[in-house]
């Protein structure tokens, strides 16, 4: 019998407690036998395993950028026990076959729960709906669908997608970007783009799509998730929609909580990302939205790129930043001057994304649920060095940033996949049995 006793951990609410794990589930610590492995968690913060709603694992197709294995290891190292792998692979995850392949690769890796996201439209082309039902019924049991990287721009296609997934309580995650308003766009449109002469990416290109989509979701009574919200106006729109009772959830990335378009002055493509880095005013609005619950979750939008796609001039560089291994520390850093608590961190990084995506075994430390847990040293000052990260992507914009939090241990269904900051052995699914969603 596989048993672990975590002794003296600090819970998100600030209380101290022991946590018991047996056969992959949380149990009452009293019920853990004497043979249990004891982990001294004195001074460590215990959070439910983190859940990322927005991850690019690149496999199949771009194994030079990331694989399901390397991405899973990066997730574990960052404290994530579940990630949602976006559909913009090659081939696109728009059939049951591709999502099942990704699902199986995730189980084989065994470092985190890899949940494939299905494409909304065939080939992400925005024209005809992919076989959403087949993906939902597949072994991968897809519940979230997104054309991320592309906007479901046609309002009629968006309406149909929102309606259709109600049949299996699915959710459409929209990449809100009007394609016509952002043709050739390279950075946020404003004073900095005017000066640098880079084609601008206006806030309204995001906000107009969000405005349309929340109204569509209201009209058809469906669930909408807005990926990587980046502007103050978007926060206002979502706040308005929620007040109106529309079933919308929203996500922000760690980088949009700190970085601004001023970084682009360096012309260093590590700062090139979609949606683009915005202004200080937007950053402050996003923090406020995250604190007051308007924005439900932090999603990493972990987007690894090989060096040759970033070691070029700005205009030729790929968009995207990695984030799985720095998200927790970066979010804590971003929110350090607010009264954002450890409970809030647990909410936006674990409980809320688990709830939205229907992951019943994540997002909680309750006895009886899956023992998905991360132990964090909340006072571990360090300078971020992406070169030691497990992801294959080195495009982390926080290189050299002084951060305070560090992941010590990650338990994935009871298996200590990260121990004292080092990668441990993966979870063996042959022993663990089926996923417990």
């Amino acid at each position, binding site marked *: 019998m596989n048993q672990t006793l975590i002794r003296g951990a600090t819970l998100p609410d600030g209380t101290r407690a022991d946590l018991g794990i047996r056969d992959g589930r949380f149990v009452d610590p009293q019920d853990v036998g004497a043979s249990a492995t004891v982990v001294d968690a004195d001074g460590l913060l215990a959070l439910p395993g983190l859940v990322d709603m927005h991850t690019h694992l690149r496999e199949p197709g771009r194994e030079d950028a990331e694989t399901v294995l390397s991405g899973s290891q990066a997730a574990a190292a960052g404290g994530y026990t579940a990630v949602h792998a976006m559909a913009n692979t090659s081939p696109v995850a728009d059939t049951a076959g591709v999502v099942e392949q990704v699902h199986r690769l995730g189980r084989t890796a065994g470092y985190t729960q890899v949940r494939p996201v299905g494409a909304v439209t065939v080939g992400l082309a925005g024209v005809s709906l992919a076989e959403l039902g087949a993906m939902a019924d597949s072994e991968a049991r897809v519940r979230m669908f997104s054309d991320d990287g592309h906007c479901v721009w046609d309002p009629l296609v968006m309406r149909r997608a929102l309606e259709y997934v109600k049949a299996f309580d699915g959710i459409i995650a929209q990449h809100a970007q009007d394609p016509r308003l952002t043709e050739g766009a390279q950075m946020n*449109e404003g004073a900095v783009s005017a000066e640098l002469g880079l084609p601008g990416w206006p806030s309204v290109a995001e906000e107009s799509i969000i405005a349309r989509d929340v109204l569509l979701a209201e009209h058809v009574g469906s669930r909408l998730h807005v990926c990587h919200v980046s502007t103050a106006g978007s926060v206002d729109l979502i706040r308005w929609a929620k007040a109106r009772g529309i079933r919308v959830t929203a996500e922000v990335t760690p980088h949009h909580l700190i970085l601004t378009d001023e970084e682009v002055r360096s012309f260093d493509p590590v700062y090139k990302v979609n949606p683009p880095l915005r202004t200080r005013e937007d950053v402050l609005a996003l923090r406020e939205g995250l604190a007051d619950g308007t924005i439900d979750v932090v999603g990493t939008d972990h987007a690894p790129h090989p060096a040759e796609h970033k070691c070029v001039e700005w205009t030729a560089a790929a968009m995207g930043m990695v984030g799985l291994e720095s998200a927790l520390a970066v979010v804590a850093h971003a929110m350090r001057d607010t009264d954002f608590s450890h409970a809030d961190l647990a909410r936006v990084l674990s409980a809320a994304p688990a709830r939205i995506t229907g992951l019943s075994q994540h997002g909680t430390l309750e006895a009886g649920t899956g023992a998905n847990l991360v132990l964090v040293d909340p006072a571990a000052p360090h300078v971020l060095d992406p070169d030691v990260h497990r992801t294959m992507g080195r495009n982390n914009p926080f290189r050299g940033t002084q951060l305070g939090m560090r992941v010590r241990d990650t338990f994935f269904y009871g298996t200590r996949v990260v121990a004292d900051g080092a990668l441990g052995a993966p979870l063996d699914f042959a022993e663990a049995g089926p996923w417990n969603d």
Partner: protein
Amino acid sequence: MRHLLSTAQLSRAEAIDLLDVAEQMSHVSTREVKKLPVLRGLTVVNLFFEDSTRTRLSFEAAAKRLSADVITFTAKGSSVSKGESLQDTAQTLSAMGADGIVIRHSGSGAPHRLAHAGWIDAPVVNAGDGTHEHPTQALLDAFTLRRVRAGLPASGPHDGAVGRGLDGMVVGIVGDILHSRVARSNVHLLTTLGAHVVLVAPPTLLPVGVDSWPCDVVYDLDEAIASQGFDALMMLRVQQERMDEAFFPTAREYARRWGLTDARARALPADCAILHPGPMNRGFEIGAEAADSPRTVVLDQVANGVSVRMAVLYRLLTGQSTADRGREGQL
């Protein structure tokens, strides 16, 4: 000054110094030996990722008049489309012994990246990057304007304008500001030198955020001509592709509202100089009367381009820091 990437980086003193050195360089073309030995034994690489015969020839002439060896590399499109990254290209040239790199690129920021990514040591001169900046064009414009301001011949050897700025001058820049690297470089430089810049353009061809620039913005050219008292008017070239992108309804309407028509040329103050970075679209942004007027200094701009680029190469490729020349202690 290690690189010349943007005119925003230039202080007034540095800008005037470059213009003054360019004045000295302007004498060379009339001398018996049209060459100075200052860059003898040094190699200047012209890296042109975007077609521009005029700018390339101007930089070549400048480097050769300073006795440098010149290697020119032209490749259309981005480095990526060639299957070679900017990094590899730069490092290859560096290995060949480039002492200075002049780069023209269709992507804004490419020269900045080349200068600051840690790939190479050589000084980098921005010869025009995307819609960002074209600092040597702005310097030659400022050089020409300074001559005009002093009532001197707009080009050719002369020392009368040495030491001066453009204080009090009112300069209009008309046309496609949004896509113009010339406009961006000129707004910074002319303002630094004391001129007042007025941008005149259709609202669709002004960048969002232009309100943070140190200049005035006017939509109506006739009103601007009537009220501003321009000392000089710079007409920008409107690229053919803009007409296809619906920035304005038709070429005819653009010419009618923002072109320097014969009537507008006559309405300008008598001593107002007319500049154009070339090549001109006659009958479109500039009418025949303005294009052929003696007030038009387009050819002077071209001549001054060589002097200014000589000054830039001289400043970047010799010496290490700004200091007064000491007579004592020289060996």
